[in-house]
């Protein structure tokens, strides 16, 4: 489709990373005053395409035309000069510099004698007012909230007279209110004739903000539609390549208790509370869901179970036996506790290790991956290949560094690592955060399969829908306390909400 007043055109862009074709002859065009959504699963090639447009990657094939002029490849400065601004998913801001300094960076010739602060301040003030981007120019970026940082990124682009703004997963890190404010800003921009490319995998947002929608799958354009002429269901089907069906979930059959906390308290840390006299029983064949606003002790609970924290009081029982006094991650692993950590980048994987190395992180100390203190890399790689095949990890191969993988594929590898060890207790902390629909369905399916094999699953999530959909029993967490178990089907959103706000505890007391 060619829009009226075309401002940007990508023509048959192809980019490969090793054996992986991230973009396969993708074409896209953008009109003046238009919001085009680029929709696709993680790993579909959206971010790669935008990095090519912005000159951070160089495409093997294809051309880019902005405002009628070809854009030289691999040159962010040229992209900026042509009026293309980009707000990356991971912000490119320097924390120790002020908002002003971050905005001014690169705007004046390097050898000029002054920074031109006064004029810049006035100009930034205008932009802040015109587009509703409230932020204090003298604050250090390190002290800003995520929403404010994003506004700084947008200000940076506008300050450079960007006429085309690329937003990469802008709402992934925002609260619903911040996302609304962002949409208001975008509407103001479009009303002034700016154009926006909005990368997302959240369907309702795409429907709300975009006029047109380009869907990518496996690096190819699989569909292009006006949002007014489609439905979220149809878009989702295009993204994943089939009609999406949530797993129909039969209740689990509770077996014996495999893990139990009796009146356990732990130390808190980093602004989050520890556990306070928590009672919890995880039974074989059941999913126990922990609902609650994050930062209410979920991290403490997860640390305790995975062996990273010790109870201050109370007792921990595994399979009917008291946990050893030296409760460590190794101990937890050897007792059959599998862990899907909350932060797959920082805790779950080591970015510069290969897939193979990451896949054996938990098992490298014993046969069959190592023998008599020597690693058997052939065996390790065979196991990794098996995980890659079985869990559909899309990657260049087991020798690739894991940082090259998208979040969904990284999570699949972690899932494979954990589930292949056949854990008796499975701790899944925010297992689908930041993943797209296809990956979410997949991860949920695997967790349910583990439950049906008889594992006791603990699911910690901020997403209430997810907890209610999957759990056989729900506890709500608030200020380090755990509500009594609420069985499947009896929990209402209103009741859970009361517990989350801490009111249930006062009433019960």
């Amino acid at each position, binding site marked *: 489709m060619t829009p009226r007043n075309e401002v940007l055109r990508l023509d048959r862009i192809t980019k490969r990373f090793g054996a992986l074709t991230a973009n396969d002859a993708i074409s896209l065009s953008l009109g003046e005053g238009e919001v085009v959504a680029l929709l696709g699963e993680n790993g579909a090639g959206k971010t790669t395409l935008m990095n090519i447009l912005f000159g951070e990657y160089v495409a093997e094939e294809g051309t880019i035309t902005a405002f009628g002029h070809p854009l030289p490849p691999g*040159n*962010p*400065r040229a992209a900026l000069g042509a009026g293309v601004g980009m707000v990356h998913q991971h912000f490119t801001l320097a924390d*120790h510099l002020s908002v002003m*300094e971050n905005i001014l*960076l690169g705007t004046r010739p390097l050898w000029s004698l002054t*920074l031109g602060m006064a004029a810049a301040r006035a100009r930034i003030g205008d932009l802040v007012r015109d587009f509703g981007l409230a932020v204090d120019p003298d604050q250090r970026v390190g002290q800003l909230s995520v929403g404010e940082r994003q506004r700084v990124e947008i200000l940076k682009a506008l300050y450079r007279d960007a006429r085309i703004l690329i937003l990469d997963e802008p709402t992934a890190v925002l609260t619903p209110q911040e996302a609304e404010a962002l949409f208001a800003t975008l509407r103001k921009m479009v009303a002034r004739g700016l154009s926006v490319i909005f990368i997302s995998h959240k369907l309702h947002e795409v429907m709300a903000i975009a006029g047109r929608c380009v869907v990518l799958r496996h690096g190819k354009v699989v569909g292009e539609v006006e949002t007014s002429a489609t439905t979220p269901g149809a878009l989702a089907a295009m993204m994943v390549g089939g009609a999406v069906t949530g797993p129909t979930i039969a209740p689990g059959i509770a077996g014996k208790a495999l893990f139990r906390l009796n009146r356990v308290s732990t130390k808190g840390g980093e602004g989050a509370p520890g556990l306070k006299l928590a009672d919890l029983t995880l039974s074989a064949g059941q999913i126990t869901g922990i609902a609650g606003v994050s930062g209410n002790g979920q991290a403490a609970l997860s640390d305790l179970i995975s062996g990273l924290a010790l109870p201050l009081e109370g007792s921990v029982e595994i399979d009917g036996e008291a946990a050893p006094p030296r409760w460590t991650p190794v101990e937890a692993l050897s007792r059959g506790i599998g862990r899907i950590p909350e932060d797959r980048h920082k805790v779950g994987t080591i970015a510069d290790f290969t897939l193979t190395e990451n896949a054996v992180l938990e098992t490298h100390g014993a046969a069959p991956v190592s023998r008599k203190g020597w690693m058997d890399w052939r065996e390790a790689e065979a196991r990794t290949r098996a995980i890659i095949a079985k869990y559909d990890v899309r990657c260049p191969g087991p020798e690739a560094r894991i940082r090259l993988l998208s979040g969904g594929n990284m999570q699949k590898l972690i899932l494979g690592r954990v589930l292949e060890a056949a854990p008796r207790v499975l701790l899944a902390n925010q297992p689908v955060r930041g993943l797209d629909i296809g990956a979410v369905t997949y991860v949920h399916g695997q967790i349910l399969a583990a439950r049906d094999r008889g594992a006791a699953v603990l699911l910690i999530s901020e997403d209430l829908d997810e907890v209610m959909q999957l759990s056989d029993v729900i506890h709500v967490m608030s200020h380090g306390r755990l509500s009594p178990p609420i069985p499947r089907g009896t929990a209402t959103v209103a009741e859970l909400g009361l517990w989350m706000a801490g009111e249930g505890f006062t009433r019960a007391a």
Partner: protein
Amino acid sequence: MSLIWDILISASFWAAAIRIASPLIFATIGELICERAGVLNLGIEGIMVIGAFAGWFAVYLGLPLWLGVGVAFISGMAFGLLHSLLTVPFGLSQHVVGLGITMLATATAAFTYRLALPEVTSPPRIEPFQPWNLPGLSDIPFLGEALFRQTSLTYAAFVVAALVALVLYRTPLGLALRSVGENPAAAAAQGLSVTGLRMGAVIVGSGLMAVGGAFLTLSAFSSFFFDMVNGRGWICIALVVFGAWQPGKAVLGALLFAAFDALQVRLQQTPMGAVLPYQLFLAMPYLLSILALVVMSRRAEVPQALMVPYNKGER
């Protein structure tokens, strides 16, 4: 205690402290520029040696003193270029490259010295910078003697520190430089050349380190010895941390260390020196500096991309 007090109120003590601080200021500011751009330059010790040698040798061959300083600066830039080539575009380990540069530069100085002057037994002397009594200022009681009867190279050290501070905080170049040390991806996203900025910083910074070395031969002493730098480069690395990567604080740190050094020399000549082993006095500035470092650098903000190579197009 009155011993120490007597020393502290003498103008000559402060004059000595400022003189001792001068080479440290040059080299510390040089290192600070490198680190602010994200590159740890452990070549500093060797670059100071080559600067001390090149500056002295140029003057020995008949060039004027200021040209000697220029030659030292250029010799430092040459090693800085090598260091930055290896660490920035090639992204090699900054530790390994830095130590390699130190060995190479030190050995180059020794080799050239022996090659040029194979027969000498006692090191030849040159006519070094003489104190320049600043008109008017040097006649102020106490302050005049303490501050304004130094060599012009000492005055230059303070001017350079002030200029670097100005550039760092008040110009687009300085902002760009700091940004590549904090978040090179952010700088690259604004179309700045991370490679160019980092290489430039290392080259100029290394030049300043070499001038710090040349201060020793052209102002403090008048000859070149192989071991004359004697760990000053490593002290400057610590001073950058002590100064929390800020030029002003780094200069204060250099003055503090120099004051301790001047103090220990004078204490050795007091009755205390007859009782205590002299090694204890020699160790004093270092011990006190470590203590000060522990106290001062607690809340320092390290450039976030220090020692992190930047590779374009890598996830």
